[in-house]
C-alpha cells in the first residue's frame, strides 16, 4: 500500500514538474498610449520573436515617461520606454533604472506653432507663450537650448498643460507654441490643417541629446540579464522589420491595437524611422548607445535641470545587454 501511494505521488509530481517550454513573463511599459514608435514591439510580439526566445511579453500603456520610470523602478514592469532626460533626472531622485537601449538616434525635440504666428528660429521664442505637459522633455531641458542659442529664458512663458489638451491648445491659438516631439506632426496637422503647422526642430539648431530610450530596472538587470538581452534583441528585430516594410508593420500594429488611427500613425511612425536611419545605427546596429553622446546628455541634465544631486554618467546606462541587429539596407 505504501509502495502504491509513493508511485502515484511520484507520477503526480513528475506530471507537475515537467512544464512545457517555460516562458519567462516579461512586462514592458510603453511610455504613452499607442503611437507610431510603439509598433516595433507589437510587430515583435505578433511575429513570435519574443516567444521564440522564451518570453511571454505583456505590453502596457503608461501616462508619460515619469509613469513608466516609476513602474519599472518599483517592479511593476520589467522594462519600459522613457525619455532619457527624464530618466537621468530621476536617477538624482533615487531611481535605479538604467538606459539599456536607444530608440531615436537623432533628437526629436521640437516646438510646434501655427503659420499665423510662426516660431521658426530660437529668438522667436522670446515673448512667446509655450505650453508643455508636466515632465515634458522640451520644458525640462529648455535652459540648455536657450543657452546654446542665446535666448533670454526669462522672456519665454511656459504654461502647464495636460497632455490630452496640448494639440488643441496650439490649434485654437490659446498658446503660441507647444513643446512636442517632431514625430507628432501628423497629429498637429490634423487639428490645425495641413500646411498650417510650423516646426522648430532643435536638432537644426545645434541641440543634440538622447531622447526616447529603453530602460530596465536594477532588479531585471541583475536577476534576469539573459531575459533582458533576449527582449532587446527581439525588439530590435521588430524595428528592423518595420524599416524593411513599414506598411506591413502598420497592418500588424492596427491588428493588435485596433484604436490606432492608421492615417495619422503611418506618417508618425515614418517620421520616427527618419530619426533612426542614421549612419551611427547603420554602422553599429539598431539601438546602439554612443558613450560620448550619452555622457553629454547626462552633463546637459546635470547642468540645466536643477537636480538635487549630480548624476554620474556610468550610473544611468549600460551596454551590457546590447545585441547587434543590422539595419536593413534600403
Amino acid at each position, binding site marked *: 500500500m505504501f509502495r502504491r501511494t509513493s508511485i502515484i505521488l511520484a507520477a503526480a509530481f513528475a506530471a507537475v514538474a515537467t512544464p512545457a517550454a517555460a516562458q519567462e513573463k516579461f512586462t514592458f511599459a510603453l511610455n504613452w498610449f499607442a503611437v507610431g514608435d510603439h509598433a516595433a514591439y507589437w510587430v515583435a510580439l505578433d511575429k513570435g520573436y519574443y516567444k521564440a526566445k522564451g518570453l511571454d511579453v505583456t505590453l502596457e500603456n503608461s501616462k508619460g515617461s515619469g509613469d513608466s520610470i516609476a513602474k519599472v523602478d*518599483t517592479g511593476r514592469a520589467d522594462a519600459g520606454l522613457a525619455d532619457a532626460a527624464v530618466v537621468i533626472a*530621476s536617477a538624482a531622485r533615487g531611481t535605479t533604472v538604467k538606459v539599456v537601449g536607444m530608440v531615436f538616434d537623432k533628437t526629436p525635440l521640437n516646438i510646434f506653432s501655427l503659420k499665423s504666428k510662426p516660431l521658426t528660429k530660437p529668438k522667436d521664442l522670446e515673448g512667446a507663450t509655450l505650453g508643455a505637459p508636466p515632465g515634458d522633455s522640451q520644458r*525640462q531641458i529648455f535652459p540648455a537650448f536657450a543657452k546654446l542659442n542665446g535666448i533670454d529664458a526669462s522672456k519665454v*512663458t511656459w*504654461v502647464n*498643460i*495636460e497632455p490630452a*489638451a496640448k494639440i488643441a491648445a496650439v490649434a485654437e491659438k*490659446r498658446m503660441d507654441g507647444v513643446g512636442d516631439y517632431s514625430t507628432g506632426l501628423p497629429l498637429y496637422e490634423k487639428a490645425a490643417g495641413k500646411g498650417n503647422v510650423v516646426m522648430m526642430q532643435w536638432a537644426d539648431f545645434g541641440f543634440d541629446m538622447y531622447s526616447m530610450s529603453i530602460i530596465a530596472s536594477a532588479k531585471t538587470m541583475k536577476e534576469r540579464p539573459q531575459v533582458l538581452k533576449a527582449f532587446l534583441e527581439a525588439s530590435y528585430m521588430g524595428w528592423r522589420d518595420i524599416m524593411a516594410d513599414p506598411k506591413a508593420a502598420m497592418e500588424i500594429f492596427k491588428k493588435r491595437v485596433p484604436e490606432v488611427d492608421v492615417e495619422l500613425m503611418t506618417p508618425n511612425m515614418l517620421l520616427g524611422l527618419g530619426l533612426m536611419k542614421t549612419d551611427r545605427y547603420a554602422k553599429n546596429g539598431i539601438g546602439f548607445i554612443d558613450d560620448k553622446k550619452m555622457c553629454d546628455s547626462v552633463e546637459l541634465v546635470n547642468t540645466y535641470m536643477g537636480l538635487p544631486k549630480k548624476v554620474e554618467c556610468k550610473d544611468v546606462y549600460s551596454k551590457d545587454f546590447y545585441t547587434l541587429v543590422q539595419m536593413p539596407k534600403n
Partner: protein
Amino acid sequence: MTKFAGLSRQYWPTLVLFAFLLASWQAAVSFGGIREYLLPAPLSVWNALWHGDTSWGQHIWATTFEIIGAFVLAAGVGVVLGVAIAWSPLLANALVPFLVFVNTLPKVAIAPLFLIWMGYGIFPNMLMGALIGFFPVVINTAVGLSQVEADMLDLGRVFSAPKWKIFVKIRIPNALPYILSALKITATAAVVGAIVGEFVASQRGLGYVIVTTQSSMNTSVAFASLIWISAVGLALYGAVVLAAHLWAPWAEGID
C-alpha cells in the same frame, strides 16, 4: 468648563489620530526603505514647505482666489436656481432634469474643452469649481424652501400674506440651514474644481505646483502643495461653519 477645555475635549481624539498617522508615516519611510520620490519623509515635506525654493505666495494666492470665486459663483447661482425651482413648478420641471444632466457630466472630461473655449487662467478654473459645486446648493435651497411646516404656512394664510411675503418671511429663513449645509459640500467641491482646472492648463497655482513637481519626481514639494490645498479648503469650510453659527444658530446640530 473653560472654552479651551471644551475644545480639547472635542478635538483630542483627532489630534491623537493625526499624531499616530504622522509617526507611522515617518516610520514607514525610515524603516521601510521606501524611495523618496514615492513617499517623502515628513521632514522633507516640512522643508519643502518652509525652506524650499518654491514661491508659495503667488501659487497660494492664485488658487485661493479661484476657490473663493468658484464658491461665491456656485453659491449665488445655486441659490438663484433653487429659488426659481421652488417658486414655479414649471421652472422646476424645465430645470431639474437639465441640472441633473449637467451634474453627472464628468468635469475632468469637460476641462480640456474649457481650455479651448475660454483659454487658461483664473476665470476658467473658477467656473470649473462652480460647475462642480453648484448642484448641492440648488437642491438644498429648493428643498429648504419647500419643506416648511404646514403650521407656518397656515399662519401666513391666516394673515392673508401674499406669496412673495410668505417666501421671504417664512420659506427663506427655513431654508437657511439647508443652504448652509450644502455650502459645506460646495466648499470642498470648489477646491476640487479649481485644482482640476489647474491640472489641465495653468501657469500658477497649487495644482500647477503638484503637476509640475510630480512629473520631475520632486514628490516632497507635491506633498507640501497638497498640505496648502487642504489648509485653504479647511479655512473655507471653517468660514462656512462660522457663517452657519452666526446666521442660523437655531439649526446647529444638523450635522
